């Protein structure tokens, strides 16, 4: 009994010990766990403190870009050529939308989504990454925007945004000069990254693609502003912490006169071609036309493939910038320039009289080079040869000169090299020389590379390998007009800083002074003045001039005429007819304007191109509007908004930036 009690007591004691042990174990376990937890706190709050602070800051503060307004583009009189306007767009962010097709179907019940909108959107989808926001429909009407806004809660990932759009009020008229802006594509994005410009383009969706818009992108874009806002977890802005306002893009003032541009355009009518007018005193481009043009608005929001294909396959080639990239043989407009080479070489003197027969036969060959005038022009000096445009005279001249004495002189006028105009994609054309031929035909072997004596003959009349852009011809003409001061032609005359209002003129110092005697310039210019006088090839065009005008007609062959055959325009398809050239400047004594005009397949120079130049000069120098087109003009009657006079500020600028 006692023993039993003892055992039970023993049991009790051991049980008691057991229990105390378990209490200690439990307490130890809990302490361990708390130490573990504190270890975690040390990791998070001490070791990783900076990291999490950064994360909390990133959570809290987001930088919202504030877009600068793109700079305006004005013509020389202050007429707006490119501007911005605000409009609503319907935008989708594919990454935030589960079923895009279903969403678009539903949106279609609220706004009219055209097949064109759809095609464009699909194209964006292919190009863009998912998280980018893509426009489905732009330029919503107020009513559409309101209707969408009221239903927006139904569509996560769909937004109606107010955006600034680019507007080119003169559309086709300025398309080749101004170019256009368009959505930034992946390639341009990469370029921006490489140039370290990504920050400045945060929030920007558009970039200058071509023309002035592309070349002056840095000036026009401006500086993006930022607003530091505190955002909550739902992304809602709670309050603004700091605001750095954007700096709007600078205003570009062009040398271009939109009235002149429009008159040139109307004078062309439906014909194809190009016209470049330059102020010989500073290289400012007064008119820059490539016909036909296109509506730049088509490109701003992405062109759909159908329209794109149509524009590209159009044989009128509206997308080709003919003034900048069209390469044409200059025809007889080349003669004044080769004349300078002839005078400089000394093979002919100013008063040397030479025959100008109906036919030139290459010595030692039966090949006949014919003159446009079957009977020829009798005996003429070089000046007269320019005036009457004697082909045979110049065949002989070129033959006597040889290519090695032509290219170095003609090249000084800028022919065959880029003028350096402030536009992208300029072509340099071809100023033929032995070196050029060797380079050009390198792949065909030495036989093809060799310069043949006969090659030089047709170069004398601006055919053969000769080919230049209308811009080059205009600049060469201006250089001839101003007695050899070669300028870099420029569309932009000055840049107006939006912030300070300071107007900075672009550099207009001549690239070089051509090293030719003044007497030669006068001599050739007189020959060109004769062109517009009775007996000149454009004598009829010069009738009734109230100022003096000099020019040179040209007819560029598109197809070679067989030996003995006769050129018959009527029998040729339109594309195969000759191009009509005219270069001119006026007034002869103190030239204010120089122009090169080419009318594609327009026939002979005096027929199509020369009247355009004459009418253009009449307007520019006397204000006379050609009656035939007066009714169609929008701009000729525009009040001229003169920019505030440069005053003293500009004067000091000139000192600062000579």
């Amino acid at each position, binding site marked *: 009994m006692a023993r039993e009690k003892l055992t039970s007591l023993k049991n009790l004691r051991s049980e008691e010990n057991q229990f105390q042990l378990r209490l200690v174990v439990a307490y130890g376990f*809990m302490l361990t766990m708390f130490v573990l937890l504190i270890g975690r706190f*040390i990791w*998070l*709050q001490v070791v990783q403190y900076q990291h999490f602070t950064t994360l909390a800051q990133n*959570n809290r503060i987001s930088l919202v870009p504030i877009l600068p307004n793109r700079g305006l583009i004005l013509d020389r009189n202050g007429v707006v050529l490119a501007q911005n306007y605000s409009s609503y767009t319907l935008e989708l962010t594919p990454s935030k939308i589960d079923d895009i097709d279903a969403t678009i179907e539903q949106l279609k019940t609220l706004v009219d989504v055209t097949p064109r909108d759809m095609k464009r959107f699909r194209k964006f989808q292919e190009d863009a990454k998912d998280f980018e926001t893509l426009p489905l429909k732009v330029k919503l009407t107020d009513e559409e925007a309101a209707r969408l806004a009221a239903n927006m809660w139904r569509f996560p990932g769909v937004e109606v945004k107010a955006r600034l759009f680019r507007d080119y009020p003169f559309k086709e008229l300025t398309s080749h000069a101004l170019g256009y802006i368009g959505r930034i594509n992946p390639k341009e994005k990469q370029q921006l990254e490489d140039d370290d410009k990504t920050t400045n383009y945060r929030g920007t969706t558009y970039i200058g693609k071509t023309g002035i818009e592309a070349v002056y992108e840095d000036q026009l874009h401006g500086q993006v502003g930022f607003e530091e806002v*505190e955002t909550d977890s739902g992304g809602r802005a709670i309050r603004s912490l700091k605001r750095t306002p954007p700096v709007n893009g600078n205003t570009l003032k062009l040398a271009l006169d939109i009235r002149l541009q429009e008159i040139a355009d109307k004078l062309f009518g439906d014909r194809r071609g190009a016209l470049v007018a330059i102020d010989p005193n500073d290289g400012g481009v007064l008119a820059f036309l490539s016909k036909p043009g296109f509506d730049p608005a088509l490109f701003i929001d992405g062109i759909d493939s159908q329209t794109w294909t149509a524009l590209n396959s159009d044989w009128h080639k509206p997308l080709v910038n003919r003034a900048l990239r069209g390469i044409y043989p200059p025809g007889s407009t080349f003669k004044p320039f080769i004349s300078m080479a002839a005078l400089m070489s000394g093979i002919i003197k100013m008063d040397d009289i030479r025959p100008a027969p109906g036919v030139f036969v290459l010595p030692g060959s039966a090949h006949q080079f014919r003159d446009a005038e079957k009977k020829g022009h009798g005996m003429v000096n070089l000046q007269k040869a320019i005036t009457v445009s004697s082909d045979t005279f110049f065949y002989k001249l070129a033959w006597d000169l040889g290519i090695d004495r032509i290219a170095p002189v003609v090249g000084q006028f800028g022919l065959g090299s880029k003028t350096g105009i402030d536009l992208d994609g300029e072509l340099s054309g071809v100023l033929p020389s032995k070196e050029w031929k060797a380079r050009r035909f390198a792949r065909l072997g030495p036989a093809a590379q060799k310069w043949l004596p006969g090659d030089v003959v047709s170069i004398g009349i601006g055919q053969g390998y000769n080919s230049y852009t209308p811009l080059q011809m205009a600049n060469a003409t201006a250089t001839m007009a101003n007695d050899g001061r070669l300028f870099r032609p420029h569309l932009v005359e000055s840049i107006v800083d939006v912030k300070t209002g300071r107007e900075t003129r672009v550099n207009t110092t001549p690239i070089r002074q051509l090293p030719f005697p003044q007497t030669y310039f006068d001599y050739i210019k007189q020959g060109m003045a004769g062109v517009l006088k009775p007996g000149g090839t454009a004598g009829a065009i010069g009738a009734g001039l109230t100022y003096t005008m000099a020019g040179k007609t040209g007819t560029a062959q598109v197809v070679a005429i067989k030996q003995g055959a006769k050129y018959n325009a009527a029998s040729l398809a339109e594309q195969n007819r000759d191009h009509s050239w005219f270069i001119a400047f006026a007034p002869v004594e103190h030239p204010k304007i120089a122009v090169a005009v080419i009318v594609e397949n327009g026939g002979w120079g005096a027929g199509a191109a020369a009247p355009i130049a004459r009418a253009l000069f009449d307007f520019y120098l006397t204000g006379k509007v050609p009656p035939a087109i007066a009714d169609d003009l929008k701009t000729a009657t525009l009040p001229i908004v003169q920019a505030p006079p440069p005053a003293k500020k500009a004067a000091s600028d000139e000192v600062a930036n000579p």
Partner: protein
Amino acid sequence: MKSQILRRLWAKLIEPLDGWLMLFLGLIFLLSLLVLYSASNQSFDKIDNKLAYTVLSLTIMWVIARTRPQVVMHFGPPLYLIGLLLLVAVHFKGITVNGSTRWLSLGFTRIQPSEIMKIALPMMIAWYFQKHEANLRWWHFIVAVVLMLLPVGLILKQPDLGTATLIMAAGFFVLFFAGLSWRVIVGGLIAFSASLPVIWHVMHDYQKKRILTLIDPMSDPLGAGYHIIQSMIAIGSGGPIGKGWLNGTQTHLDYIPERTTDFIFAVFSEEFGMIGNLILVGLYLLIISRGLMITARAQTLYGRLMAGSITLSFFFYAFVNMGMVSGILPVVGVPLPFVSYGGTATVTLFIGTGMLMSIGKLRK
């Protein structure tokens, strides 16, 4: 004279209470008011509610504290049975919210029967062991496990992994103090580890996701990982001394989910930093230490088992909540004891505290 009456009333009022526990709980309560004020964006609505249910809880606690443990013990079996019946009722007629069926409508209010089990289950098992105190054999443990698995199984079915874990833990703590063989405990741990793949297999997708999220929150930063990432940012950016009361950016810009309830610790930690965390953990440690002292001195088996289970449950709640919010445990719905906003959980906690006090004072 008047003060005499008041003094006697006061003495009567505090007579059943445990001074240390009251002190620690009082400090925690003050902290909880501060953090709740901040978490509710300086609105007094939730503070008012909290004061109201705390007064109610304290009243219930006081009543239990002045009741002898032996008396309270006898409520165990009926409470357990009622709880079990209600859980069955939930299974058939429960209200489903967010995909889980946890509530039962009583017409005027809804109750969560699993909450009753947090107290009822340890009471039931402790009562059962007390009844067989003289000759505890291994089969009594088997019966206890069955008693435990019945409600746990029903709650897992709801599904409510968090509450099921808490209840299972409370039951296990009773078994542990009742002398569950070490061999069984170690064997059980090994068996549990071995069966993890099976458990993984039967887990719900959302539960699996929570585990995966724990391992790598960045795997789904805007989905399952979002809450835990944001609360970790809150804690981490709080740093050693915190951002200061009412200055938590994560809190006030709405980045912390459930910030007055399950994630209130993130708010606290962001504003009071490492120092605040140490103070809070210290207070929990003090409460637990006091609880274990009461347990050690308890005179009956029931008293020991209940006091031990309640104390370890307090620890378990606190640890699981802080562990989950700081990203070392999966996200389960466990409130931070005495701090999280919520009436039902608080009442349960204070019932437990009341029992602890009654065991501490009255011994038998």
